[in-house]
Every structure is written in C-alpha cells, then in structure tokens.
C-alpha cells in the first residue's frame, strides 16, 4: 500500500482479558498474516467478539502482548477497521456516512465524495447515496457499514457476525461485499456462527473455546475432520457447554 512497514502480521502473545473476575480471553497466542481470510468460529461466550475488540484496540488486554508489525496509523488514517454486528448509522445520508471517516482522516472534500461514491458503488448502494442511512433496511445498513469501514482502504478489516439476523438474500449481498473487499487486497477477519458462511468466505479457521484457541486449521480440513473434540462437537451441533 505504501513504503511504510506492512501492518501485518498481527502477533498476540498470551493475551488475557478479564472483567469482573471473569476471564473471557484466557491466554491466546496467535499470529494473523496478510492474505488468507480468517474465520473465527466458536460457541457463544467463547470470547470471539472480545478477541476482535482487543485486536482492533477497542479493549485493552488485562495482560499479554498484542503487536502489529507496522504502525497502526498512516497519514492520519487507521490501517484496520471494524464492522459491528449491529450497524450503527450516523443520522445523515448514506454518502455522508461513508465520507465521515474520510473527513476524520483529513481527506479533501472533493476527494471524500469521489472515494465515498466509489465505495458505495462497490457494495451496490450508489443508488441510495442521498438517502438517510437510518431508513435503509438492515442488510443495506450492514453493506453501508462495510463501505464506510472500507472507505479508508484499511489493510485489515474485522467483521463481527455481520450477517446475524439477516435473511438469505441480504446475507448473500453482504458476503459478496466482503469478497469484493478481500479481492481489493484487504485482509479479512470474520466472526461467524454459520458453518456454511465459514466455508464460503474462509480460507482458515481459528476455533475458540472458553477463551482459548482450541484449533486452527484450513477451512476444508477443519470442517471435514476437526482435530479437537470441542470443534468436533461444535460442528456436530452438539454443544455441551450451552
């Protein structure tokens, strides 16, 4: 992307996160490289969301080390972005929502418009550019959130269950948007509950159980023959811990 040190790999060393005496992330050591799309799988409460928030810097680890290879900020823009499970739309037009992070990064006004339009185009929302973001449907809002996160061309994009509670066609549109982002060279890290989605969108799986990495494997192998008993149980749909 530029002469600066590449952002990735991201290295986690024995990262722990506790809140109110409960250990949610319990000693994760992990390296995320540029390239393969990483899918984070695991039952509810296994620490997936917290792990992602730790990586994105929204939470601070209680102990352990979390280090990017290169600087996280470059020319006023953050090099990693995040799409949340429930999209939060600013009370303004779709276009203005995408332009907002560009304005924060000090991009010139005319440029903001051009980049934002292009981002909207990529997720198929250009016809809705001037519509208030909050009147869009849930699926459209999530695609808008992807366009907004991607407007600054991050090297790394975190997505926390972006298709939870959406119907199949909205899910399909979002998966297409994620694929577009991937093809443009952004590293994808995606949390999902849906094994089909993991199969469609993932190259490798990081499987969490009780705040630890129980297994990490290429997606095909993980789904066909999981090595850990927890993952095997998860795939069979037998979740003894829920």
């Amino acid at each position: 992307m530029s002469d600066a040190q590449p952002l990735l790999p991201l290295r986690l060393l024995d990262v722990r996160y506790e809140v109110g005496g409960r250990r949610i992330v319990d000693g994760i050591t992990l390296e995320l490289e540029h390239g393969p799309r990483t899918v984070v799988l695991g039952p509810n409460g296994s620490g997936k969301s917290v792990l992602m928030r730790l990586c994105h810097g929204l939470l601070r680890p209680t102990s352990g080390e979390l280090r990017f290879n290169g600087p996280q900020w470059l020319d006023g823009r953050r090099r990693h972005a995040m799409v949340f499970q429930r999209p939060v739309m600013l009370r303004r037009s779709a276009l203005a929502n995408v332009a907002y992070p560009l304005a924060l990064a000090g991009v010139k006004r005319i440029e903001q418009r051009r980049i934002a339009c292009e981002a909207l185009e990529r997720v198929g929302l250009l016809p809705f550019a001037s519509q208030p973001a909050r009147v869009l449907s849930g699926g459209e809002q999530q695609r808008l959130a992807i366009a907004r996160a991607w407007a600054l061309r991050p090297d790394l994009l975190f997505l926390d269950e972006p298709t939870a509670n959406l119907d199949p066609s909205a899910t399909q549109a979002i998966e297409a948007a994620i694929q577009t982002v991937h093809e443009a060279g952004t590293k994808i890290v995606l949390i999902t509950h849906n094994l089909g989605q993991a199969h469609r969108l993932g190259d490798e799986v990081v499987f969490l159980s009780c705040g630890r990495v129980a297994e990490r494997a290429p997606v095909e192998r993980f789904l066909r023959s999981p090595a850990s008993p927890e993952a095997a149980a998860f795939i069979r749909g037998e979740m003894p811990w829920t």
Partner: protein
Amino acid sequence: MNDIWAAVDAAARLVAGGDRHLFGIVLLSLKVSLSAVAIASLIGLPLGGALAVARFPGRRTLTVITNALMGLPPVVVGLGVYLLLSRAGPLGELGLLFTPEAMVVAQSILVLPIVTALTRQIAADAWTEYHDLLRSLGAGPLRAAATLLWDIRDSLLTVVLAGFGRAAAEVGAVMIVGGNIDGVTRVMTTAIALETSKGDLPLALGLGMILIGLVLVVNAAAYVLREAASRRHGSSAR
C-alpha cells in the same frame, strides 16, 4: 362567577386589541427568557455532551450536582444574584441590579442545569450506541462529542424548549433581581402576580392567556420540526 367572565371578556379584548402596555410586557418577557435560554444552551449543550463523553475524576459528582440543580428554587437563585449584584456585593459596581440584564443572568443560572443535565442524559444514551463506532473510525474525544451532539440535535431541541419553559414560567428570580418596575423590568409572570394582588384581573388573565398560548405555539413548532427531521434523517428508534 360573573366577575370572572367579565374579566375573561376584558382580557380577550386587551389581547385582541393589541394593547401596547400589554405587548410591551410580552416583548420584554420574550427578550429576557430567550436571551437566558441562548446563553444557557451555549454553555449547557457542550457541557452536557462533555459530561456524557469524557471520563475524568469527579464526573459522577458533577453529574449528581447538575441533576440536583435542575430543581433549584427560582427565589433562591434570585436571592443569590441579588446579593452578587447589589451595591455592596462583589459585582455591585456593574450597576446591573433591577435591569433586564440582571434578569437574564438569573434565568440563565436557572436554565443552565436543566439544559446540561438533560443533554447529558440524552447524549449518554446515544454514546453507548456510538462510542465503539466513533472510536473505531478514529474520532478523537472532541470530534466524537461534536458528532454525537450533531446526531442528537433533534432531541436537543426538546431540551432547549424545556429550558425555555422554565425561564418563561418562573416568577421568583425575575421578581427579586428585576424589581418588577413598570416599563423597565416588568415581565409577564411578575405582572400577573402584581395585577392579581391588585385585583386587576383582566390584565392578569390576558397575560396568562398569552403566556400559555406562547408556550403552546413554541412547543407545537418544535414538534413539527422534530417530525420533519425524523422523516428526513430516519427515526432513531429501530
């Protein structure tokens, strides 16, 4: 009973006839209360936003105090400002006592906690929704607070109105620091109090009608504005 109807009739004629004396009082009331609300909003909106967003030692205490001050008795504020502005007081040299300016000061103090506390409440609720997103997008604390206030601007209109309602309706503070001087510091509420005690019911009633009508009109206008805004930006409730 007949006396009352006669008074209502006379009051209606005063209002309809555009009585100059009456409208002078109305105009001064509006000037004082609107100025007070403007000043209180200028300070209270950003302050409320900061209380919602910033994390600093003493924030909880400040929040509790602000909430408590919403119930500040107007006469006590009047007394405090009176002591400040009286000849022997620390600000006595300004010669502001018994002027409309003094009334603006007193009402600003009354309205400020209302605007601050209500803004803080609304902004804090919105902040729980926005805060991860704004941090994720790289907004610093100041920018985040500004974005937050801008996004809840429709709700803040209601806050400002609540402040205006308080200022327009109170009588204690303006009575003490203004002195209810005819043609100088006499406003609607103080005039109503005086005319009622004098027995001049038509003027008191006429002023009462205008006061209520004014509050109604202002609130109706705000309601329409909010409706239009939520249609334009999309409702906040999902």
